[in-house]
């Protein structure tokens, strides 16, 4: 990054921004210099801010004709060595699944922000968590994904930086599964000094002392080093089943199995490094509320109120990372409880992996669904009172 573009980074301090703007600022801080997108409510503010800011930092902004092409731009940009991002909302996220699958197979680092809105179809334009399963399972074929779930304006900034770091580290598409609630709210955003922010970039063959003639685009490590176009290395991005050297001929079953298993395992096998949870009041609790995203804000308020007003022994657990699903971490902290409450802005989606993880650790799992709006504390409290009193 040249001095000229550094000059246009937000200086350290407190700002009052929308989550969408914080997200774009996080991307820029992380080194994103290509943004391609197609506007859609309620994600357009991310793009609007990118249109303003990317040129200021020496980056490129391009509005494409649709979401498929927007996401496709990220592939090319990433192969050329840039960090690239797009943002969309649920109907657009459906269209991007093809590229996500392509990026998984070609092991292309890129970041997609989904400011979720209700579906199916055009649904509505308010808040939602209805894409959390699509995030994991929407792309065709095997492979895994990394998806983060921010709950505040600060996290829209922090998690977007983290998303780029994860994308670069694991050579994977990374999803920021935001919601209209966090994208549109304004809160203080603290920008720390640049030297206190960890920025990671992809490992290149040059860094490992691998000369061009012995470079294998899909070899050397569980996360292969990635060569940029134009640096003298054989760059071979193929989404067909391929050998370590990128060759797609001479198909054999073992190569197929091993290569796709590696792509899946580099994520799933490192779940403990990648995925995080947050907990409060978990020691010896009888019940627990498990949530993610903006619902965590309501849930922690409800949990504190239930404890304070009615002495109900209820704990709080938040999935910071949705995928890869942090099953082991859940099992470490939820041992033997009566009830697991799962409030979500959908009809009960993450309830399924939670059930799979904790079915032998609790007596019952109670979904608290809503659509199109954030739960009020009362919605969660009334369910807790109904079951726990």
């Amino acid at each position: 990054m040249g001095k000229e573009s550094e000059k246009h980074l937000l200086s350290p301090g407190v700002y009052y921004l929308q989550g969408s703007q914080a997200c774009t600022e996080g991307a820029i801080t992380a080194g994103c210099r290509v943004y391609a997108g197609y506007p859609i409510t309620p994600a357009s503010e991310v793009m609007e801010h990118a249109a303003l800011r990317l040129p200021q930092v020496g980056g490129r902004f391009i509005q494409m004709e649709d979401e498929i092409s927007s996401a496709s731009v990220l592939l090319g940009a990433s192969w050329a060595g840039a960090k690239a991002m797009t943002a969309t909302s649920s109907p657009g996220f459906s269209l991007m699944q093809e590229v996500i699958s392509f990026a998984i197979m070609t092991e292309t680092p890129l970041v997609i922000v989904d400011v979720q809105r209700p579906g199916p179809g055009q649904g509505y334009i308010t808040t939602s968590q209805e894409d959390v399963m699509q995030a994991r399972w929407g792309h065709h074929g095997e492979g895994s994904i990394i998806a983060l779930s921010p709950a505040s304006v600060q996290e829209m900034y922090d998690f977007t930086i983290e998303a780029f770091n994860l994308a670069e580290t694991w050579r994977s598409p990374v999803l920021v599964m935001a919601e209209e609630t966090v994208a549109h709210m304004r809160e203080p955003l603290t920008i720390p000094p640049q030297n206190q922010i960890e920025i990671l970039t992809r490992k290149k063959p040059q860094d490992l002392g691998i000369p061009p003639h012995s470079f294998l685009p899909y070899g050397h490590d569980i996360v292969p080093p990635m060569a940029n176009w134009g640096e003298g290395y054989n760059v071979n991005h193929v989404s067909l089943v391929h050998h370590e050297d990128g060759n797609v001929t001479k198909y054999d079953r073992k190569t197929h199995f091993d290569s796709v298993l590696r792509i899946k395992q580099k994520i799933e096998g490192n779940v403990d490094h990648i995925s995080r949870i947050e907990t409060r009041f978990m020691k010896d609790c009888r019940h627990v509320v498990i949530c993610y995203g903006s619902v965590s804000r309501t849930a922690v308020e409800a949990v504190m109120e239930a404890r304070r007003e009615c002495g109900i022994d209820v704990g709080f657990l938040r999935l910071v990372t949705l995928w890869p699903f942090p099953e082991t971490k859940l099992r470490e902290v939820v041992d033997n409880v009566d009830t697991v409450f799962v409030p979500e802005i959908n009809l009960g989606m993450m309830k399924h992996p939670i059930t799979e993880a904790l079915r032998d650790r609790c007596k019952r799992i109670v979904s608290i669904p809503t659509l199109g709006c954030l739960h009020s504390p009362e919605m969660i409290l009334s369910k807790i009172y109904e079951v726990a009193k």
Partner: protein
Amino acid sequence: MGGDRRYEIRIAGFGGQGVITVGKILGTAFSVFEGKNSVNTQSYGPESRGGACKSEVVVSDGQINYPYVRKADVLVALSCLAFETYIPDLKKDGILLVDSRSITDIPEQDQYRVYRVPTAEIASETGGVKYQNIVALGALYYLIRDHLEESSLREAIKENLPPETRDVNMAAFTKGIQYVKDHYQALGTREKSHGQGI
């Protein structure tokens, strides 16, 4: 405010009256210039372009979890529809600031501390009806002045509105303050004015 107590302000009117801008300015004043925590949210959807539109600011010295108003300490209503929609969520003895030309009938007004300000009229005299929101903000400031400094709000106005409209916005803000000072003379500190619906 003090401690982790939430102080909840809701500003409501028709889409286009500038209530969202008022929320943004208030949030900026509280968080950037007063160092408090605040969350500003707004109604989103068709209602933000014509129907009953609202902007909310929740303020606290501590962490703010639930980002929306639960029971408002203050309601600023600039239209009749907004008043009718949001009055049920105003606390007993809460501050109710209304545009006096739009809202003439206030049922159970002894439940609240009511302040009637002809915000649109004052704005028209000041530079145009589009400054109605900033007149209302001036009036609001005077009623909640124990919670923030006037200079913080003036700085936040500068930060959030176009420089070419600064002078007239500052004038509108001053007139809002002056109107409340002139017409609710008895107002001293919060404690003295408590429960007073004039």
